[in-house]
Structures are given as C-alpha cells and as structure tokens.
C-alpha cells in the first residue's frame, strides 16, 4: 500500500497488461486515480498502472518528458508555463476542478479572526502566503482582490508550503494564506476563518490540476494514451459520484487525520479538460503579471 499497486503476475485471460507509471502527488486531488486503479478501470483498458509519488512538478515533469513516467498529474498553471518555455506537453483529462461553491471549495484564503481581515478587499497591503509564486495561487488571489475593488498589486506574496501555513497563520508570521485541503480544514480547526474562496470566486470551473503526457508519447503510442485517457475519465466520474469511496481510498496513500478527513471539502472531478477553462487560466495569468503576453494554450490539447 505504499502508493503502488501490485503488478498482475498472471494476465487473467486478457493477455499481458502494458505496464504504465504515473507520477502523482500525495494530495487529495489525485484520489480518483487511486480509486480507479482499485476499481480495475485501468486493467480493463489493458494497463498495469504503478503510481509513483513525488512531491511536485520539479520531478514529475522531467520524468514524464524523459519517458520514465508515461503520464503525470500536475497543476495546470505549471504546465502552461512549461509549454510557454517550449516543452511539448499534452493535457489529457482534467484532474481537479473548483467546486464553484463559495463556502464549500477545496481551496481558500484564510486569516485569523483578530487579523482585521474579513473579506478579499482587506487583503490589500497584507502579506499572503502561497505555495508557489507566479502560479495559480497568487493569480487567483489577485483576481479576487481586484474584483473586490482593492489594489491587487498592494498584496505581498510569500512562498510557503501548504503544510506549514496553518501554523504560520495562527502564529502571525503571515497575515493570510491561500491554502488547500486538507490543510484548509486544519487551519479552520486551529481557529482561522476563510476570507475568500479564491478558486470559486475567480472562476467557478477553475481547472486546478490535470493529467498530462508528452506530445512525443501521443505521437509514438496513441493506443496507450487513449487507453489511459479512457480509464482516467471513468475514474474521475466514479470519484465524483462516490465521495465516501474517495475518503476511504485516501487512507491508502495519505495520513490525513480522520476528523480532518470528514470535515474537508473535496474538489470537483469531471473528465473534460475544456479548452476554455485552460485559456481562462492563461488569461488570468497574463492579466496578473505571470506572462508577458497572453499564451496560446491550444498546443496543450491533443
């Protein structure tokens, strides 16, 4: 149960399975692929999936590009960035999408009640922690501050890992933090309150994470890509309609505290990575200084 599934030694009548490695991050977003593997969706498509855990894109993108992993999960903005730099990347399916519900999303901006921050507008002039600068976090926070009529450029952003944010907010090291589950719930349990649901508020269908592969692989091995895409779509649909199974499968690759697990919000999972959603992200990025010119995201889709 350490993140990889046992390989099927004897192909159960269906012939040999194609071994496939997928780079994933140990967060809630990727629960459907775990569930999908458990449910046998990938075997049905002739794939023997090994899930490889890594901490972030720094390792997953090069591994996919070099062919060491066939597929990977990544934050969408990072892939737009990579594509802008000339990496041949193809997005196959959506990974995690904002629930679009203000009050019940899997990411938001939190602050302590005594910080004087109650709304997005109050973030102006404050220090806000995000996990990565020039990425989806600061872009969407700027967007909501802008929407609230305050000056987005007056917000100071600091990089910090999500796990460290609850302590930093509670201890006053930062004024506020953009944070995702399960740490969002941890922060709330530690007394913080959500001041903005920046995903839902900036785009109800915000495409936070996606599954991708290299353009090379699409060209070389279209059947495998098709099989993976099909199984992945099935998994995402299954995950969306079975939240209890999702919460159960989390125990196999995370150590989230049961109390947190029950309280937290899950992302929305849908199979389609819509061109429009990707372009909206790119445009947001362009508007808030991530890119010099609006990127062309069409090359990211098959």
């Amino acid at each position, binding site marked *: 149960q350490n993140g990889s599934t046992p390989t099927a030694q004897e192909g159960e009548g269906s012939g040999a399975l194609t071994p496939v490695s997928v780079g994933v991050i140990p967060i809630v977003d990727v629960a459907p692929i775990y569930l999908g593997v458990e449910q046998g969706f990938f075997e049905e498509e002739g794939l023997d999936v090994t899930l490889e855990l890594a901490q*972030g894109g*720094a390792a997953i993108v090069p591994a996919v590009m070099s062919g060491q992993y066939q597929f990977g999960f990544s934050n969408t903005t*990072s892939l737009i960035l990579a594509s802008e*730099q000339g990496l041949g990347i193809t997005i196959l399916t959506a990974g995690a999408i904002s629930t679009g519900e203000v009050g019940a999303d899997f990411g938001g901006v939190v602050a302590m009640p005594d910080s004087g921050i109650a709304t997005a507008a109050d973030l102006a002039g404050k220090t806000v922690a995000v996990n990565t600068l020039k990425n989806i976090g600061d872009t969407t926070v700027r967007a909501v501050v802008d929407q609230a009529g305050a000056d987005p450029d007056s917000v100071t952003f600091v990089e910090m890992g999500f796990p460290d944010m609850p302590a930093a907010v509670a201890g006053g090291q*930062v004024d506020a933090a953009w944070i995702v589950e399960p740490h969002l719930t941890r922060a709330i349990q530690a007394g913080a309150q959500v001041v903005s649901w920046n995903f839902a508020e900036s785009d109800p269908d915000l495409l936070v994470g996606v599954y991708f592969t290299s353009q090379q692989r699409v060209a070389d091995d279209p059947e495998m890509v098709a099989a993976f895409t099909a199984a992945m779509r099935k998994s995402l649909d299954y995950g969306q309609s079975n939240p209890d199974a999702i919460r159960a499968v989390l125990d196999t690759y995370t150590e989230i505290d049961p109390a947190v697990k029950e309280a937290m919000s899950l992302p929305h999972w849908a199979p389609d990575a819509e061109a429009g959603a990707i372009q909206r992200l790119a445009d947001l990025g362009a508007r808030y200084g991530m890119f010099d010119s609006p990127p062309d995201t069409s090359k990211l889709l098959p």
Partner: protein
Amino acid sequence: MTRAWRPILLATGLPAVLLGLWWALTAESTSFFNPPLARILAQFRQTWFTQPFGESLFVHDVLPSVARLLAGYLVALAIGVGLGVAIGSSRALRAYCEPVLEFFRAIPPPVMVPILMLFLGIGTPMRVFVIATGCLWPILLNTIEGVRGIDPVLRDTARAYRLGRRSMVRHLVVRGASPQIVTGARQALSIGIILMVISEMFTARDGLGFTVVSFQRSFAIPEMWSGVIILGLIGVLLSLVFRAVTEAVLAWYLGYRSAQRGGA
C-alpha cells in the same frame, strides 16, 4: 615572466577545458533540461544584469542572499569554534553533547524550516539561522577533533607554565587546532551557499536561491543554469577571499610544513 603566469594558468586551465567540453557536448543538445551552454551564457547577462543596474536581479536577489550567507557563516564560525573548543577540551561535555548534536546534525534542513518558522518567523533571522546551523557542523566537528589532537607536549608545556584558561584557549587551543578549524571553515563555506539556496526554497520572496528555484519551477531552464553558474562563481570568489585570510592566519603552519621541504 612565466612564473607569474603559472598560478593563473593553473587556476584557469581546467575550468577552460571543462567549459569547452560542456560547450561541445551540449552544442547540438535539443534536450529541454540540458540546453546548449551557448544559450545559457547568452541568458546570463540578460537574466542578472538588466538595466538599470539598481533594479537588476543581481542587486535585488544576489546581494541580499550573499549578505545573509555571510551573516550565517560568521555566526556559525563563532559558535562552532567556541563550542568546539569547549567540547574538545572536556571529555564529559563531549559525551553529554555528542548524541544530541549528532541527532540534529542528521535532520534535513527542509524539515527543520517549518519548526524554525514558528520561533523565528519567516524573515531574515530564520534564514540566517538555517545557514548558520548548516555551516556549524563542519566547523564544530573539525574544531573538536583539532582540539583533541593538539600535541600533548605543547599541552603539558602550557599547563606547566600555568597558562590561565583564557590564554590556554587563545594561545594553545585555538592556534593548535587552527589547521583543522580552517578545514572546517572551508567546508562550511560551500555548505553555507547550499543552505542559502535551501533557506530560500521555503517561505521566501527574494534571494538567489529563490530565483533559481522559481526558474526551475517555471521551466526557465537556461535561466536556472545561469543561476547555478552564479552560485559556483560566488563559491570561487569567496574561496579566494578565504584563501587570502587563511594564508595570513596559518602562515606559521604553511611555513612549518614547507620548512623541511627545502626551506623555500
């Protein structure tokens, strides 16, 4: 004439060969993560020395990082030598401290950062602290071993003349251990640079390390490599300063060691 050039030739010969190799091997490279050296060098000026100079990344990111590095390094030097002298001089103290020190020594800085953040915040003090804790170990270990290895005859001489505690430390222990202390300090210099990067990987907003990691994360690979080159250059520069200081501090040692190799 050739004599004056010799050290310069020696210092630049191998780097020139290696750069040449790097250039040649990557000239045709189409690999995204391993771009041609030509591209990296082309990126170099553009990335770090944009106009106006006052707003270039060099001033904005490199200089503050180096300042933190030096601060952390000097703190480590003071604590490392002080603590090392105490621990090296007392068997009981060594036995008492060693397990705890070894425990902390083995803990990766990335996981220490969150705890430090709780106590020191996320500003400069925390980063200086991370750099200092990293630099501490080689200095501390080498000082301890240097102190333990001091010639017993010298120690006896100092004792017989009843040198006070302070003179003992100043004239015997620190000087006697100085060759090894310098070795530790040399090690610490490059570790300091590495930790400068690590300390900026977490909870950072500026700094050379932060910039390099951001480049890496945004897949600006030639820019990232140019940052790595800057790190190396800082290493070379600091080591030049370090060598000059060493030659002054260890003049006796270098003379002593070469005295019998022909007196030159």
